[in-house]
């Protein structure tokens, strides 16, 4: 029986595709200039992840190991095509902005990685959940980074949301600094790298703190003589 709680936590935190596995960095760094871009790509990726995990899990006993990767890529490519067509019909402007990065979801290692590492070894339900959680974990990082870069780069948050959520979302834009000069560095790729590094650093700090806490609490100090530390040689 699959441990759904573990799958969820893995996807969102412990084994987050963007922060821990560092997979799919190319789209992650390329399109996170603003929140709306991040949400768009995050949704698309999640959709593909769930779909591909589902399909891969279904065919897991039918496809021989030797040809599994081509099969997976075919599946992923089909889903990506679907998502692409969907985006063309529903959010054409966003599709235009994200451009090549939507078709490039096919090559996103996070998706192929989950298909190969998880979905082909697990039943349908856990596989779908894994795809969903990995997708959400990836999207959260995308949105975080997008928010950070949009804030630093343009001084706004949630601008151009109408691209994704219809005309009424145009008013969601928050302008945090009125006379913001724009910080081009944050919008350019180096800013993405620095931002990503900072987010990973924060995650590592949290993990280190939690580890220190759990190590401190349940283990009472062992007594039984002082431990001599070798200081020489």
């Amino acid at each position, binding site marked *: 029986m699959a441990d759904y709680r573990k799958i969820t936590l893995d996807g969102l935190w412990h084994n987050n595709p963007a922060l821990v596995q560092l997979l799919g960095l190319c789209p992650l760094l390329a399109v996170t200039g603003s929140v709306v871009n991040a949400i768009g790509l995050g949704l698309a990726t999640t959709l593909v992840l769930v779909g591909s995990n589902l399909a891969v899990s279904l065919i897991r006993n039918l496809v021989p190991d030797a040809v599994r990767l081509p099969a997976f890529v075919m599946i992923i490519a089909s889903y990506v095509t679907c998502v692409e067509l969907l985006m063309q019909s529903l959010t054409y402007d966003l599709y235009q902005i994200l451009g090549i990065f939507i078709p490039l979801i096919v090559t996103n290692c996070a998706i192929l990685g989950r298909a190969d590492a998880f979905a082909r070894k697990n039943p349908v339900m856990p596989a779908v959940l894994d795809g969903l959680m990995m997708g959400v974990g990836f999207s959260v990082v995308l949105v975080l980074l997008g928010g950070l870069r949009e804030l630093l780069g343009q001084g706004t948050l949630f601008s151009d949301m109408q691209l994704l959520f219809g005309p009424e979302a145009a008013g969601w834009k928050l302008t945090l600094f009125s006379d913001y*000069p*724009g*910080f081009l560095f944050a919008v*350019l790729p180096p800013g993405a790298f620095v931002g990503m590094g900072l987010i990973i650093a924060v995650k590592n700090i949290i993990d280190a703190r939690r580890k220190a806490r759990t190590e401190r609490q349940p283990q009472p100090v062992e007594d039984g003589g002082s431990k001599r530390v070798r200081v020489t040689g």
Partner: protein
Amino acid sequence: MALMRLSSPHVHRPGKTGDVMKQVIAAALPGLATLVWYFGWGPLINAVFAVTLALLFEAVILKLRRRPLGFYLGDFSAALTGLLLALALPPYLPWWTTTVGVFVAIVIAKQLYGGLGQNPFNPAMIGYALLLISFPVEMTRWAGPQEVTGAQLSFVDALAVIFAGQGLPDAVTMATPLETFKHKGALTADELWAQSAQLLAGLHAWQAVNLAFLLGGIYLLLRRIITWHIPGALLFTLFMVSGFFYGADPSNHGSPLFHLSTGAIMLGAFFIATDPVTAATSNKGKLVFGASIGLLIYIIRTWGNYPDAVAFSVLLMNLAAPFLDYYTRPRTYGHKQPQKGIKR
């Protein structure tokens, strides 16, 4: 009779890292004074502000890293970084721009890599390059020499421009010679100089600034704080390359003197490229390092997008410094051949 048991050598040359940094700072002061002389109070305010900020950021990070403040601030490296950045910035840059630059220089380019001695890139130049990329408008708004523009900003005015967000009066602004030359379009060099008499009149201000930095650099050379290899190779290469193109086509290329006496050349050659942490260390490596910077400066100035290129050239060669060091190792006493590269 408590005897100290210490390892040899028991004597030590006086002088510490902090003294080295202090002398470099001192050597940069004539340049700063010349800047103030020609461009008003702006450079001085910038410098004081940037140094203060640099010390502040350094102190905060040291606190976070739980390092002794006095010991590390006493090496004056943060102050020097702040000063060098300020000297490279336009004279009346708004305060927040300077703040961003110093923050990036000290926190990201230096301390995040482990502090003094660990940073692969020149912190001041990282700060400068980041500002140049992010805030092109602010970073290209240069003041002209006061005697040419005729407009003088009082100390209070200068403070207001920098800190209160008052725009720099148009009367004060003026393009730098390098910018003007960059955007001369189809004009020949002679036509350009004929058109911009104001600039021609002010050219000597920039030349004086470079001369002041050259004097400071010679002081450093005499005090043996830097060696001649990097500035020598840099200036020689720039001279030769610009001379070649000037000789081939004088109407479209600046003269060697023009290239050597404008922009941040002397500051870069003697104060920035010679930063030991990020430069090559072997003498041969230094020669290659300096020459490559000179070449890159000319290439970017002439065919690149930016009028001046000291920062980018230095950063690019910083990247190559470890490589240069591995491949320009001296021949050790008693060995026939110098070893090259690094064995794994």
